[in-house]
């Protein structure tokens, strides 16, 4: 079957398992077809609609195909920052990230020893309290990044390879040491 529909028109029409909807940016290998509007039987996203909650790990094979994880955290307009498994997901997959969450998320991660991706990603959004202006800033940044070619994005990922490795290692270090450190202080 031929795949020719434009992405914007078919969003929500490819759905790898009931109730999960994806857009055509997933169709980078051209093996999906949305023309008959039936559920896609060979799910690219491994049949997991809610991976972080139903799986026993955070691993998703498809992450290797993307440079940046746009993390939509549990809370956005909320008095506290909340680090959940959603923020950890790009760290364990060694991806860059932009966090659509409460302001201060990046500075919290930095205070915990993680590194972020400035200057490639403009992280000003993390300091903006107003939720609408913060979202505008995030989308502006996504728009700017979208203008880079895939080769430029790959090149950038290589430049940040050490940072990605650091974050991965640091996550493991924290998992093995943070609890002990905190309990010892009690």
């Amino acid at each position: 079957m031929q795949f020719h529909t434009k992405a914007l028109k078919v969003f929500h029409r490819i759905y790898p398992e009931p109730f999960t909807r994806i857009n055509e940016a997933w169709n980078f290998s051209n093996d999906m077809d949305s023309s008959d509007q039936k559920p896609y039987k060979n799910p690219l996203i491994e049949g997991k609609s809610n991976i972080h909650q139903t799986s026993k790990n955070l691993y998703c094979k498809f992450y290797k195909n993307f440079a940046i994880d746009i993390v939509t955290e549990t809370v956005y307009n909320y008095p506290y920052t909340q680090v959940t498994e959603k923020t950890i997901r790009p760290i364990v997959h060694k991806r860059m990230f932009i966090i659509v969450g409460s302001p201060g998320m990046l500075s919290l991660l930095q205070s915990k020893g993680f590194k972020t991706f400035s200057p490639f990603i403009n992280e000003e959004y993390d300091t903006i309290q107003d939720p609408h202006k913060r979202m505008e800033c995030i989308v502006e940044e996504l728009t700017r990044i979208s203008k880079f070619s895939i080769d430029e994005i790959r090149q950038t990922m290589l430049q940040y390879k050490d940072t990605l490795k650091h974050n991965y290692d640091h996550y493991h270090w924290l998992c093995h040491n943070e609890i002990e450190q905190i309990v010892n202080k009690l």
Partner: protein
Amino acid sequence: MTIISSAFIEALSTKFNILDVLDVTEFDSNFNILVNRLLKTKKEHFAPKDRYLIGHVDTDYYLPDCPYGLSTFNLVRTFLHNDIPLNTLIFLTNHPGIKKEFELLIPKEMHKHNFPTIIDNCITVPKTVRLGLNQEETNFNDLDIVKHGVSMIGEPRIHRNMLYNQLNEKNLLDVYAVSYKGTKSVS
């Protein structure tokens, strides 16, 4: 099944006698559940190392201009009303800075000797955050990258709807892959 990792409970058990472990989500819609659980282990005289461990890693409800969350308010009230010392409580949360809510809710004269222990700076305590430990390290290959980004939006929420609508308006859905979990089937 608590959201608090067993590693944390084990570490805490070396220092304290843990009377019970609860998550706020178990009782935030019905605080009688908390009352019943507390009364099961309530003592006439608590030992110095007796502790209740309560995990708070979900969202609370905040009324406009109210400086504390409903669950925090009800939790403190429940302890006070049932005459259970607040210093028996270890409150484990992913809300950094939530201590100020307890300071508002607990009478000042109790702050020195009858105040909960609040742990708000440990990001690796929830089981879900530790899920990445189970995963093998993946080899990084830049040539595998075919798209700029991905957003596993998941359950619809206002900010996720905002993001999706903005990506749509700016014609960015060809660049960023999005997965959105709906609540009913697509027609």
